[in-house]
């Protein structure tokens, strides 16, 4: 799924990265806890988060995340946007809440980062 498709699906606003919308996203993960993102995130992840301070972008950069979608209308602060620009990490903002935003992406075939498979 491209970032452009994700933008349209989530009716998201592009805060930074209009030039990067053709990026191919293969999986995603959602959390407000950067501790969890650092522990379970994988390079290439699309990060959905409600944490809008600079730590969200710093964490995304550390784990080689591909892009960030801020949920429930949140937007990152200036320091975060500046770092995203520097590192080329696209930032989107959607009005959907976390559960709905993740559900929309998952239902359209974007898998999660987790390797867990359902118990039989």
């Amino acid at each position, binding site marked *: 799924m491209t970032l452009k498709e994700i933008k349209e699906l989530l009716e998201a606003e592009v805060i930074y990265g209009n030039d990067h919308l053709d990026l191919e996203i293969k999986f995603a993960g959602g959390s407000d806890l950067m*501790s969890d993102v650092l*522990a379970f995130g994988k*390079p290439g992840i699309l990060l959905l988060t409600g*944490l809008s*301070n*600079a*730590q969200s972008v710093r*964490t995304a*950069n*550390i784990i080689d995340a591909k892009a960030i979608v801020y949920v429930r209308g949140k937007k990152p602060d200036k320091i975060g946007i500046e770092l995203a620009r520097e590192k080329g990490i696209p930032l989107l903002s959607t009005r959907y809440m976390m559960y709905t935003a993740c559900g929309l992406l998952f239902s359209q075939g974007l898998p999660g980062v987790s390797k867990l498979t359902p118990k039989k």
Partner: protein
Amino acid sequence: MTMSDKNELSQRFEIKGGDFSRAGKTSTIIKEILQELGIDSSIIVRTSIASYEAEMNVVMYAQRGVLTLSITPEKLYLKLEDEGPGIENIDLAMQEGFSTATDEMREMGFGAGMGLPNIKKNADKFEISSTPGKGTTLDIIICLDKTGKR
């Protein structure tokens, strides 16, 4: 970066406790240094995560800390020495989920009790020592040799 006679690059970073707005900057710089050196990207991610978690611990809990990055042809070495409250029970602190974080730390997205276990997970060798009331020292080694542990 300074180069010693042992073919070792080393750089020292000072981290200020309580400075949440700058938290993570040192690790961002460390990642840039490793990228410039052309180190394997999966090793860069592991090193950056360990460094970031260690840096956040200083920002959250200590008064100040010094993080030293040393690079030899065989390994990356992160040493973190902080002046702070130290850790009373290291076994407990190493358990996933154990945390003494405050609300302010949690608002920053940290303090879930994953930091030290996550450093250990990303390191090839990890040692921690602490003196309550004085501070904590972390030694983190990540092998560059592909035939290493990972």
